[in-house]
């Protein structure tokens, strides 16, 4: 039993390595810098046919073509940014996983932060308001009022006892 499990683990582990290095041997590079840039690019560029995959992970035809084109452009001496711009000019901003800073993308960050800030301000103002009420309470005035009430009650009681026991 233990033996079959360990065999299974070995098989599964080898499958993983086969998958992640599957297409690498097909691609040859002029120098290590080019290879590094190519690897960054295929992770950063997004497959336009797929919902959420970079072109390194996708096997769609368009992703294959984009990988080939990215390599070709690097071999022609284009910089990484030039390759990214080349793809964005054809497939739109969607094709890059680093969206530009504009009103729509700023809103994504600003709305949640603004909401939390608003809640904090509201809570703070509310707690300050309640402490103000506490301070405003005139304890001396209340005490005298209470004394007056107690006096009234005892007066009433005295009156009742005198009426019941004439």
């Amino acid at each position, binding site marked *: 039993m233990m033996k079959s499990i360990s065999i299974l683990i070995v098989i599964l582990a080898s499958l993983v390595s086969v998958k992640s290095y599957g297409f690498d041997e*097909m691609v040859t590079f002029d120098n290590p810098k080019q290879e590094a840039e190519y690897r960054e690019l295929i992770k950063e560029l997004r497959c*336009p*046919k797929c919902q959420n995959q970079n072109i390194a992970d996708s096997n*769609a035809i368009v992703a294959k073509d*984009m990988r080939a084109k990215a390599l070709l452009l690097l071999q022609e001496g284009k910089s990484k940014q030039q390759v990214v711009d080349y793809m964005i000019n*054809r497939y*739109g901003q969607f094709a890059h996983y680093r969206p530009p800073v504009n009103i729509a993308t700023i809103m994504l960050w600003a709305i949640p932060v603004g909401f939390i800030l608003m809640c904090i301000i509201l809570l703070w103002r509310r707690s300050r308001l309640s402490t103000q009420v506490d301070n405003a309470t005139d304890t001396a005035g209340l005490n005298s009022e209470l004394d007056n009430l107690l006096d009234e009650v005892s007066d009433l009681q005295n009156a009742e006892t005198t009426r019941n026991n004439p």
Partner: protein
Amino acid sequence: MKYKLSLFLPLFIFVILVGFLLKGLFSDPRQRDSAVVGKSFPEFQLPDLMNEEKVHSLQTLRGEKVLLNVWGTWCITCKYELPFLTKIKTEYGVKVVGIYYDQNHAPEFGQFANIPQIQVEVKQLLAQLGDPYQFHILDLDRTLSLDLGVTGAPETFLMDSNGVIKAHHMGDVNERVWRDKLAPIWNEMQ
């Protein structure tokens, strides 16, 4: 008065949230704005599908407004739009040119498209379902398709006589798409 307004704040936020989520529920995640509309049609030099000695280029394409349809016999949806494209060709006189998109051709993987076989398949299919095309540009390496931002087939472009792309539609062209999206642009085009 201030107190009453803040009472409605949660309801207000809720309504906005519901509106936002409803919009997401009914939107098509595959639909996105094309990056090539308004730009000049890319330069190319590609052979004709039926006659490889004949070469098409942007120069031969310019001068007349044209509907370019990216398609392939392997593409199921393309078969559904063939009758409709034939209809708009005959009824409205739309010039339709095919860009043949082959998905098997990958020389770096040792796979080559069988062009004579594709020619036979194309002829059979068009005889069966209708032939809207004036000719087909054979984009074997899919370089023109990449320049056009094509993600698959079918996709359709409208190009004016000056060679400017006026519309880009992903998916099939049917009665609804033509009436709502493409025909208004086509009729405005020079």
